[in-house]
């Protein structure tokens, strides 16, 4: 009787957790994730861009994810993706609306997981967590765009410079996925 109830191995659990037959998200070749708090001014740029892309339409091979402030849940949404494009706001002190395309080698240098904090979850934490969670299924290509925020005033709209940058990043993201999977639906 007792033999029926045995814990799964880590590999079995991971397989079950990521089992596509049971998952709610279709397997897209490219997953585009916009992160940020929609209540905090320019921090909303990632999720806002996701909404614009949705309204403009995307091919079947692209899955859009409103990452919001979901933290580790973003990592679960990357499963099954060959490529991930991530958009977030940044505060580096340069002019608002400045666009950063994080270099590939930078994206590969992920922070250590120890001491990770669910409420200060940044894009690189999401990737580090995804790397841990997804194991062999971690996406092959990761592209990260960061847009410098002008203000994070609660309830405020995007500032003009950030809104312009958002549309520019939107075009860049479209170019990226057309290169990755083609433009046909």
């Amino acid at each position, binding site marked *: 009787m007792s033999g029926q109830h045995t814990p799964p191995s880590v590999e079995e*659990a*991971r397989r079950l957790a990521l*089992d596509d037959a*049971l998952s709610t998200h279709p397997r897209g070749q490219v997953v585009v994730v916009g992160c940020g708090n929609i209540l905090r001014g320019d921090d909303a740029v990632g999720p806002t861009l996701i909404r614009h892309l949705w309204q403009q339409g995307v091919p079947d091979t692209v899955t859009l994810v409103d990452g919001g402030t979901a933290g580790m849940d973003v990592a679960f949404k990357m499963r099954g993706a060959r490529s991930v494009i991530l958009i977030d706001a940044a505060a580096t002190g340069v002019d608002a609306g400045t666009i950063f395309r994080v270099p590939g080698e*930078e994206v590969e240098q992920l922070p250590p997981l120890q001491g990770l*904090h669910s409420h200060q979850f940044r894009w690189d934490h999401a990737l580090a967590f995804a790397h841990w969670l997804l194991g062999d299924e971690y996406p092959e290509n990761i592209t990260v765009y960061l847009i410098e925020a002008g203000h*994070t005033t609660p309830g405020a709209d995007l500032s003009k410079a950030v809104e312009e*940058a958002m549309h520019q990043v939107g075009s860049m993201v479209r170019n990226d996925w057309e290169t990755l999977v083609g433009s046909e639906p």
Partner: protein
Amino acid sequence: MSTIDLNVSPLGRVEGDLDVRVTIDDGVVSSAWTTAGMFRGFEMILKGKDPQAGLIVTPRICGICGGSHLYKSAYALDTAWQTHVPQNATLIRNLAQITETLQSIPRYFYALFAIDLTNKKYAKSKLYDEAVRRFAPYVGESYQTGVVLSQKPVEVYAMFGGQWPHSSFMVPGGVMSAPTLAEVTRSIAILENWNRAWLEGQWLGCSNERWLENKTWDDVLAWVDENESQHNSDCGFFIRYCLDVGLDSFGQGVGNFIATGTYFEPSMYENPDIDGRNAALINRSGVYANGEFSEFDHMRVAEDTAHSFYEGSGLLHPWEGQTNPIDPEAGKKDGKYSWAKSPRYDVPGQGYMPLETGPLARRMAAGAPGAGAHQDDDPLFIDIMDKIGPSVMVRQLARMHEGPKYYQWARKWLDDIDLQESFYTKPIEHTSGKGFGSTEAARGSLSDWIVIEDGKIENYQVVTPTAWNIGPRDGEGTLGPIEDALVGAPIEDTSDPVELGLVARSFDSCLVCTVHAYDGKTGKQLSKFVVNGMV
């Protein structure tokens, strides 16, 4: 605008922190103050809005309990508008609430709580190496399987609610969801796989039925030693470890409890009303104070702002509740120290007092006399409280005990859905009225009170489990439940007071929590650390 490649430090997410300050005298916590450090103000956002705004706004109050927020805000409108809710809709709402809680149980246990069990303080325990092997963050075997599998239950939520978190698919009169047999069978498969792998396979090492046969503390102890599979399960190990390192000996708290209850028997709540609420509940409501049970009555709830950064100082029922923030610097001069209000309950014959909410409170309500045929009637935690009293371990065990029980309920509700019948009855949108909606989020009672006038929200007050538990002192100077639970905790190493983390975390409050420890005599700061320092 130019595009350049740079090394950058990204923007961290900003969120309201909970500060806990304690004084320590002779190695024991002598007093405690809990400070919610950030103003929330959702009540102000909702005032003057469309009555249904709460369905959109309140699920954003919390990223882990969004479904619970939606559930109670829907019932606040159902009671205010006197809607009809088809039985299918009640089943779907129940399922959504319960899958969110089923996700929280392992995620909270491994990712937030059990990490402290690997603290070096316990290195002298003969079970320490095994604790590290299981629970060390990211590398522990149980940690890995528990965390990666924790997502599965909310996949069921997303199946019916379109997404998780932050769905708004529950509406007055039912749910905006039209499930087919495919969703139901996929949901059954997801839950059964999760149950087999984690709940029965890893956590219990036995069937849910076997665990739920335990009616007394002695039964639980006998269960641990009944066979190897149970002895070596995460639950069996957790109990043995707690007893070995003394987690059954501190973190008692106020010892008085409130549960507003959740999950409705569909046939008994087709016309949701406040008066019929207690009788229709499956997970019962109830108050337990100084050894006496009494029926929950929302009219006995009031919020005190004597030590909170708001105008006023008296007790107000939430329908009359006010959220008028003041400058905290000015408030500090009057002894105010938190953005949380202090919810209190007027216990019949005993007066207003702080009450602990959460799984242990639910377990006390489940053991009260007078259960209806459809209601949870479970003596286990009454016996445990009689035999060994509350503690970090007992609070934690109460949370985990809900896994097997809730799994069985969820499984039954999936079978009960009648796909031929309706999921929604269009309500009449009355231009005035008062409503009360409540549920049990994983971490405790969560309620909305709404007053509608001229077709708009005149007043909206949300009382969260975290406010019940972390609220500051009231006008009488009586400590809040977590403040009270911290007092008396023995601190072995003041530079690493893991005991405080264990007490605070055993309440699973949904604020990131920073603890400051001070020497009671000299006032010198001893240490500072973050409690919810993990995913």
